[in-house]
């Protein structure tokens, strides 16, 4: 493991520690109501989520300590974090999945507001374009495929897709 990865793990474990604390002290107490009748039981509806959240806290703390030790050990061994700057290409590569994700979110929103047909006409071709698809035949194949899938869902599986 390199030092950079160990550092990422430290942040990740920290995130899970905070998440489990939020669950234990805010979400579970406020979002699960236990009545007096339920209190009689030794295992209330709160117990299982509490058990899991406590487990998550314990495991993340262990993971946090382990990552800290690895990070420190690698430092002692003389391994330094390379503070190299990302090039424009690397930035593009790192951010590209999030651009596609944003397009998927837009697709979902358009589906909700205007229906599946307008959403499918607009967004997926943009995704195709982003994926450097430049042949018109590919767009034709895509529309043919979606038309078949649409007919399958609406006419055969009888799903009421707008």
């Amino acid at each position: 493991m390199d030092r950079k990865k160990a550092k990422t793990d430290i942040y990740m474990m920290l995130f899970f520690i905070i998440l489990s604390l939020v669950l234990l002290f805010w979400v579970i107490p406020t979002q699960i109501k236990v009545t007096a009748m339920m209190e009689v039981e030794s295992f209330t509806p709160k117990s299982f989520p509490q058990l899991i959240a406590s487990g998550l806290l314990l495991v993340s703390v262990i993971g946090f300590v382990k990552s800290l030790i690895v990070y420190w050990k690698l430092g002692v061994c003389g391994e330094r974090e390379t503070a190299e700057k990302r090039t424009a290409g690397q930035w593009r590569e790192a951010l590209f999945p999030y651009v596609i994700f944003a397009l998927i979110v837009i697709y979902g929103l358009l589906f909700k507001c205007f229906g599946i047909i307008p959403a499918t006409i607009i967004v997926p071709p943009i995704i195709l374009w982003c994926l450097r698809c430049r042949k018109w035949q590919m767009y034709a194949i895509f529309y043919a495929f979606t038309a078949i899938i649409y007919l399958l869902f609406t006419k055969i599986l009888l799903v009421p897709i707008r």
Partner: protein
Amino acid sequence: MSLAVLAEIFTIHNLLMMNLGLFAGIVIGAMPGLSVSFAVTVLLTMTIGMESIPSMFMLLGGYVGGMYGGSITAILINTPGTPNSAATTLDGYPLAKQGRAGDALKAALYGSTIGGLISAAALLFLAPQLAKIVEVIASPEMFAICLFGLCATISLSKDNIIKGLISALLGLLVCCVGLDPIFGTGRMIFGSRSLMAGFRPVTCMLGVYALSQVLFECNTARQKGDSGTRGYEISKSALRLRDLLKYWKTILKSSVIGVIIGAIPGTGGGISAMFSYNEARRASKNPEKFGKGSIEGVLAPETGNNAVTGATLIPMLTMGIPGDAVMAIMLGALTMQGITPGAKLFSAGSIWVYAIMGGLLVINIFMLLQGSLFIKLFVNVSRIPENILLPCIVVLCTMGAFAISNSMIEVAVLIVFALIGFLMKKFGIPVIPFTIALVLGTLCETNLRRSLMVSYGDPMILVRRPICFCILLFSLLLLVYPTISKAIKALRKRAGEAAEK
């Protein structure tokens, strides 16, 4: 009853679904980067609204076909279509380089078919016997078995058990959302009515396996652009079934290895293929030929990985415990159909379970037919550029998620879980324990609570019952074993270094 089962299997609709599933499974399996679980998840979207038997046949077709499909690119371009076919590259690609790609593909097809048939037969004979035992199992033991299934999948993430544990715990937390299974009180629903039913495992898996793959593969697809992969030359095979049956011992051993490994939760085709390959090399009269283009070296891993297909169904159908990600998806599909797997399926006298098991045999025979007739087509389909596939997956997943309950909330859940799946893969958190926990969570909680109710809240009931205690102890060992073995290895290494000094 057997006639009724046959009549149930051999309807045109069912046979069509088997073949469609197989075709899609082989095609997806042959595309490098797309896994068998991805194939089954994509097919799942097509089964919404279908009856349970044809939908299960379609999913099983995808599973069996995906297992075999991975071998096509493993042999032709040294890139396993699925991780299960990694061992096939060792001898398959050298054979292709020698101009014997046709022989290697034929050996893979026959090996996969025989392995699949033996596995389906094992399922048919073993599952009803196991169901009889499972029927007398009480809640504490059932809880222990659920926990064992989870621990087995966590133990697969040998490099980082902690991340595997986190993944499983997150899955269990997601399971807690919705109505409490005993009292029916709302849990973590934030006042939303849509969340009262909780997150449907099927939608979550569609996001985590299929849609997240779009985010994960988009950079590769962008780099490749419109260019498909080059065409492949497949030589005509001179091999006959007779030539392959010379290796009957290897085939039989690999099948047995596959059945045993497949029946253990948390394992899978990849492990079975590697074990089978190593065993074949160890027992071979010509071990020096392995790695340089041995037919036996293709036959063994392909038989081994397809021999898990029936065996993984044993714990799923008898106990409702999914052994791997594909079974978790299938369990989600069954739950969606209103079918609860378990020993009762066998004791209730329903032909459903026997139709499914018998159908698996038929699917394997159809695989042999499709593989023999359409191999050139499969090879060419695997050259489709990835950039056209990804938007198709987006549309398919979105329509499929909507169709689950005809509601936009499922689409929202799909998108959120796609991001979760992507981030998990990006930061090295294994996804399989998360999905297994998604389907086992409720079963785990319900059985734990029932056990505690019976014992008036005394958790020692889990320790006092010998079978339950043994399963729990074994589960714990599975978790700590990788850490202990690593520590022992490090100690030995240090001791060796000290002795050298």
